């Protein structure tokens, strides 16, 4: 598909002189490796080749159009009139440079672009990317690209430490002005030379909060127009109170990630038995979880993991709460009750550890509930709370966890072969460490087919596989709750960044004026 961003600039909007966004994301610097500033770059200052539209279809960002015949050679034609914030013209060489530069300096990008074999720029407006093997899903990886100006970064050896204001020069609709760490405010200004014309909101400020309570107090006091967190909504515990405030409107944004999932390491004892995992899935009271953690927008998930809105979704077994059935399944699997109230099979007790991050109170609460649910059917779950570094070390490097509690992001669901396979496949991120032949086969098929229909068939089979094997149990599906000042209307939604995206800047109106 191809798309064009050239739209008439809506000049008659009631103007918003300045928009303040509050966030609890911890921006530490403006170098290109700062994770949270990277998100703000994606939203305000920088552009990639392609992006997703409201319906999760690919559309051009810097690219006016693109084409591929076999999924191996990808040709992109760049938009006209793009300039860097310092006035220099954007050329195909910049795109080539950005990809290569990122691959050279960032370990993260190298893993995203590892398939790229070569990049060529036949002319100023054309980028040709050749992959080492055909990959129809390559555009998913390209979504994370934020193109960098060659004339600035070619002189920067260590981008991680490059915190000069020039490091924030992009070609997006907004220009980075300053990061005031004292006040905790990042200021962006409309890019007057933007090829679509300057966005109507001349100034956008991002206020950094350390504590969500203060953030929501600021929202209620009208100090900020909206709170924002990347790929997360407002916690329902705040939403309930915000809903009572007439100044504030809550919007639901579809979430293509799974908000909370219990992911098993299927290579570890006890949970390596699909029958046990299935039994555990019957022990969980999904409705209660929805009531407690996602009362406004949550629903009980199906065993197929992938949220209902995902393209290619098929209905699988709805997850249900049936402890008696769970107990029966465990008996069938050979786990029998002992005096200690914990089931055993040949002396092997039905106990396992659940890894959780100590800085997410919600997860700790969930773990507490899961512990109680499983206890009811004679399985003992030991929660192990660790900080973020240890959590990542264990799940990504040591892989010594037995089970873990995590969310999956919309983009994460799309990566690898899509449908959350990246999280499952031991060859990729592989938190679930799945590597059985049937699964591998499905993945390979999904990864290589160019036919959308064939992909649909394989992905349906994959969801069926999830439902039968349960490498991960989704605990609930929900939408992101995005509160904002009720006076502001015209929000557009991007599957990647939610309400903050280029379309919003051109459509947002202040309805009170």
């Amino acid at each position: 598909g191809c798309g064009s961003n050239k739209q008439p600039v809506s000049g008659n909007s009631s103007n918003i002189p300045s928009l303040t966004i509050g966030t609890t994301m911890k921006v530490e610097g403006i170098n290109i490796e700062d994770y949270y500033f990277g998100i703000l770059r994606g939203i305000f200052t920088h552009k990639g080749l392609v992006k997703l539209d409201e319906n999760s279809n690919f559309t051009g960002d810097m690219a006016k159009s693109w084409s591929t015949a076999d999924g191996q050679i990808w040709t992109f034609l760049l938009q006209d009139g793009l300039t860097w914030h310092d006035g220099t013209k954007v050329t195909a060489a910049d795109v080539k440079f950005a990809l290569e530069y990122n691959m050279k300096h960032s370990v993260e990008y190298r893993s995203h672009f590892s398939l790229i074999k070569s990049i060529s720029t036949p002319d100023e407006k054309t980028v040709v990317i050749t992959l080492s093997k055909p990959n129809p899903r390559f555009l998913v990886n390209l979504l994370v690209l934020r193109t960098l100006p060659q004339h600035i970064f070619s002189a920067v050896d260590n981008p991680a430490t490059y915190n000069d204001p020039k490091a924030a020069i992009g070609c997006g609709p907004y220009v980075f002005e300053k990061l005031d760490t004292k006040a905790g405010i990042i200021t962006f200004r409309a890019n007057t030379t933007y090829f679509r014309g300057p966005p109507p909101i001349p100034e956008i400020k991002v206020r950094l909060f350390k504590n969500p309570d203060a953030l929501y107090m600021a929202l209620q006091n009208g100090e900020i127009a909206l709170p924002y967190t990347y790929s997360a909504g407002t916690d329902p515990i705040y939403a309930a109170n915000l809903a009572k405030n007439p100044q504030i409107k809550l919007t639901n944004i579809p979430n293509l990630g799974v908000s909370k999932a219990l992911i098993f390491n299927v290579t570890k004892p006890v949970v390596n038995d699909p029958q046990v995992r299935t039994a555990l899935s019957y022990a969980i009271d999904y409705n209660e979880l929805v009531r407690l953690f996602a009362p406004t927008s949550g629903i009980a998930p199906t065993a197929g993991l992938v949220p209902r809105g995902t393209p290619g979704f098929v209905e699988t077994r709805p997850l249900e709460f049936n402890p008696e059935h769970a107990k029966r399944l465990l008996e069938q699997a050979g786990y029998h009750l002992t005096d200690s109230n914990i089931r055993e099979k040949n002396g092997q007790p039905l106990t396992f550890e659940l890894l959780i991050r100590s800085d997410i109170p919600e997860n700790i609460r969930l773990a507490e509930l899961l512990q109680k649910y499983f206890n009811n059917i004679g399985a003992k779950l030991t929660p192990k709370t660790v900080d973020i570094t240890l959590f990542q070390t264990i799940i990504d490097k040591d892989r010594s966890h037995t089970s873990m509690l995590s969310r999956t992001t919309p983009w994460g669901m799309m990566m690898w072969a899509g449908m959350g396979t990246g999280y499952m496949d031991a060859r990729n991120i592989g938190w679930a460490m799945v590597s059985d032949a049937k699964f591998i086969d499905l993945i390979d098929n999904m990864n290589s087919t160019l036919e959308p229909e064939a992909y649909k068939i394989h992905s349906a089979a994959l969801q069926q596989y999830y439902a039968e094997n349960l490498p991960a149990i989704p605990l609930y599906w929900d939408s992101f709750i995005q509160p904002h000042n009720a006076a502001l209307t015209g929000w557009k939604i991007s599957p990647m960044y939610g309400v903050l995206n280029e379309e919003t800047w051109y459509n947002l109106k202040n309805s009170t004026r």
Partner: protein
Amino acid sequence: MFRSRLSLPMYCGLSLLMILILLALLAPMLAPYSPSERFTPFALPSAAHRLGCDDIGHDILSQLIFASRVSLLVGLTAAVASAGLGTAIGVLSGYCQGYTALFFNSIIHIVLLIPALPLMLTLAAYVGPSLGNIIAIIGLLGWCSTARVVQARVLQLKSMPYVEALRSLGIPEHQIIVKHIIPNVYEVIAAKFILAVAYAMLTESALSFLGLGDPMTISWGTILYYAFHRGGFVNDLWHWYLPPGLCIAAATLAFTLLAFYLEQKAQQAKILTEDSAHAA
């Protein structure tokens, strides 16, 4: 005149403490529900739930009552650890001379120099959140001030004529330390111990607040932690965040009142000995 007034805080402290200890001991009888039973989440105070329910529907009053066990336990054991260590090192560094004094003095100074909070964070990250670890951390870090005070007092006692007299009588040094030095720093130790209980309980709550505590055990600190992180403040659920805060305050107050009383007594005892030096 001051003496007679002093006992009032002591009685206040003691009775407050008795109430809390009774609360902890009789928790299963006093609590209306089991602390893990779940009702309507975020329920407001009502006849059924005097203090309402928390984010996942636990009865807050029952949780509070059961939490007193953990909080008091953490406070007392951590204080025992820190006071014990502090006394031992304080006495040794104060009484001994030469190398031994040098060694213990150095330990005190090193621990004083290591910034407490980072060390706490580091240790908490290292050993992971669990009750035992919190106790160990507070105990390990809290002994320093006890040691300093004890050391100062021991240095003072060491030059008292009675210690010299005992030495000239041929009493062995270890006996002097155990029988004559330690009993005389008793008030200081007792006061410090009780302050350490208060300190430990405050620290436990602060660690819990920072997410470094053990969120799986119900203590006043963790109730506050959830109240803070799960919308208690923003949603004005005062019945959720205020009671644990007040419980911590009450327990700390009980202990500090006692410590204050003991400190006064210790000071009076000191004045007494100094006075008798003039009077004699």
